[in-house]
């Protein structure tokens, strides 16, 4: 009863097919937290408000976008990354649009397959609690091979490749490094060396990592986590004090995030303008300290915290979308049989 009554009311005040909308809906993952004024400029220029609709983590967001392809929940989607992009492309989630309004890193543009616009990038890497390792008298690991050395037995925690996006990225890093034939042996060796696999990033970082009460000084996180450790420290740390954690640069996998116009939006032109805004210098420079990613816009300067504390990852693992698309489900299932 309530249901149908409200349905009638809502239908009655639903929007009509106007040529210019009052607002656009930007779908994003739950941890998308731009500053409050991030869209003020866009609204001032176009008269269009931006409503942010959050829908779970990146994986859930894509699962939902794939199911609703052609009749989307919003107009623009923020946050499909290169490990998930192929799924969205196969389901034709997006109306192809690559923003040329601002200068973007060319290598990022290429990985968007001409369908989506790269908005940021970052690296998934093993992080090190330097103090805890020092206390144990162990030198930090350098290469992925070090992690299967008995010296590092029971020291590493990673998140599940079948339920978390950094977990999947790390699995892809090992496949990139050891090849289709070698990665399963590497993971068997990791399991023999007592790697701990937990559900998601926050389980790994806030329950198993030695900095937050756990007993594992090596944790799968991001290259941008050390600056966050300084910025969000309590008691506060001076900007130039050293970060309490460091990054194992050899373990990194490059994640590129994209934004795209959702196929089925009634407002294609306005949605494209919103994508343009997402790669503008004004928006991009808020990204590092809010989302802990690097801007794709080459003119957006990095804040001091990143210049000081985020390592330069020169040769991260990468993988083509087509290879990920072809192998992902098979790899994840195989990985599950190894770790469980």
């Amino acid at each position, binding site marked *: 009863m309530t249901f149908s009554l409200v349905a009638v009311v809502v239908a009655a005040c639903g929007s009509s097919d106007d040529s210019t909308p009052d607002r656009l809906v930007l779908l994003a993952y739950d941890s998308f937290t731009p500053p409050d004024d991030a869209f003020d400029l866009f609204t001032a220029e176009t008269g269009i408000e931006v409503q942010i609709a959050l829908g779970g983590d990146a994986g859930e967001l894509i*699962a939902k976008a794939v199911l609703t392809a052609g009749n989307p929940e919003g107009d623009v989607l923020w946050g499909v990354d290169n490990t998930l992009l192929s799924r969205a492309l196969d389901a034709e989630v997006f109306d192809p649009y690559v923003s040329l309004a601002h200068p973007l890193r060319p290598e990022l543009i290429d990985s968007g397959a001409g369908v989506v616009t790269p908005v940021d990038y970052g690296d998934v890497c093993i992080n090190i609690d330097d103090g805890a390792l020092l206390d144990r008298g162990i030198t930090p690991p350098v290469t992925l091979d070090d992690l299967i050395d008995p010296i590092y037995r029971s020291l590493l925690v990673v998140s599940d490749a079948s339920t978390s996006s950094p977990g999947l990225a790390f699995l892809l890093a090992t496949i990139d490094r050891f090849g289709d034939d070698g990665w399963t042996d590497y993971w068997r060796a990791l399991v023999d060396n007592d790697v701990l696999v937990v559900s*998601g990033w926050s389980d790994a970082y806030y329950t198993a990592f030695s900095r937050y009460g756990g007993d594992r000084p090596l944790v799968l996180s991001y290259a941008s986590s050390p600056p*966050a450790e300084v*910025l969000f420290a309590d008691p506060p740390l001076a900007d130039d004090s050293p970060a309490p954690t460091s990054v194992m640069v050899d373990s990194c996998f490059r994640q590129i995030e994209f934004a795209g116009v959702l196929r089925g939006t009634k407002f294609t032109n306005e949605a494209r303008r919103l994508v343009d805004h997402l790669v503008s210098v004004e928006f991009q420079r808020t990204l590092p300290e809010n989302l802990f990613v690097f801007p794709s816009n080459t003119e957006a300067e990095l804040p001091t915290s990143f210049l000081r504390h985020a390592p330069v990852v020169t040769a991260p693992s990468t993988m083509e979308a087509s290879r990920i698309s072809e192998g992902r489900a098979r790899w994840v299932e195989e990985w599950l049989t190894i770790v469980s």
Partner: protein
Amino acid sequence: MSLRQTAPWSSRFAPLPSAFLVVAVVIVPLIVLVVETVDDPWSVWSRPGITGAVWFSVWQGALSTVITLAVGLVPTWILARFPVRGRPILMAVFTAPFVLPTVVVGAAFLALLPTSLDRSLVAILLAHVFFNVSVVVRTVLPVWRSMDENLLAAARTLGADPLKVWRGVTWPLLRPAILSAASLVFVMCATSYGVIRVLGSGWSTVDVEIYRRAVALGDVSGAAVLAAVQALVVITALTMWSRRSSEWAVLSTTIPTRRRRPALEVLVWIIGLAFLVPIAALAATSLRSSTGWSLAGWRNLFGLTESRLPDTKIVEAVTNSAAYAVVAAGIAVPTGLSLARSAARRPRRWLTAIVDAPIGISAVAVGLGILITYDVDPIDVRASWWLVPVVHASVALPFVVRSAVPLIRSIPSGLGEAAATLGASPWRRWVHVELPLLRPAVTAASAFSLAMSLGEFGATSFLTRRDTTTLPILVESLLSRPGSLSVMTGSATAVLLLVVTGGLVVLVDRRTPT
């Protein structure tokens, strides 16, 4: 009897709103998901891990249920039969765990348990007991409380020893409520998702497999098959179970007037305090900085300090959470009670089974199903603010009905008929006879509904929200970034969520006359 046969149309149709709610929000979306996505119903069963997950769901669910009952019935008995100081506080303590975000409880348990037990079966069982004791307390306590003291006294006077009184009088009266609680707890634990993900490294239930297939492997077809089979099994099992527990309870009108028992009072407080330990651990996390103790997390939560974390918009989050909870309860309690009233008078097993469906259906499947079911105008409801509380209401409904049925059964049906014979209009009968008698049922039902809504149960966490932060979402978003201040503020938010829930439950309990 004749009066019941000529029941007005309103009571004949009383169960329909709740059935409609569940069919529309849960069952139709699941069917649509199956019809639109399943291409091969067989292949998923041969995938790695599926049979293991089915088996683990069953035995772990049974074990969790037995332990939860054993732990939960002790405080239930004491709180039901004896005057206890601070009763409302204890009721809140036993109810609040139900709403805690599992990530947060997981973290609290991991902080408390010795490392050797981290992510073990013991951790899973402890967490299930912690979460579900509230189901036992909330379902069984009102019935036990309304048990006729004269009946027990009569049995004792006739020479029955305590064991005989229990077997001959107490147990038959309590059995429907206990079986009802047990079946709920079993389904909750067998379909456990969050606890297993956080605490069960290597363990997997069917619900976890459904999530894994739909989200990580992109195999929505396989996920839909698993969800449909799980739903059928759960609904069938609950229906058969309810047949066994559908006998009537004996009427009772007196209120227990026993003397205080200090030893039992101490015992129930000890159990209550044990339930506070994980919560205290959570509070400690909110105060622990990287060098010592600090209030920075709390100051930051309320915007009292300069920090570079995004503004928590705490007032908005609390308001949204509370508004959703109230709207959801406003839907779930009246519809659920009207079904419970009619189910209490005569068995409506299939109807109750339909209403039980939300507990047995994977949240992921419902969330995805809603997206592709109500997606065309004029029923494109995906963007509506009320979708969230409506889904909350349907998820809370089985708990509302199950906590109310045993209570309503224990109301003497003769009273209404006597009032009718004496010439009272249906309206007067409702206001002056039935409603006061329904009070305990309304209380129990509202507490469940509010708590479930505040904790963002099941499918609701999978829905897309527009510009609406709620407390659980705020916790998740704070705990998704590194830095001690993030985890302190996130834990402070979780504590606040608990306080808000506890506060609402106390408020509701106080409105019930004792």
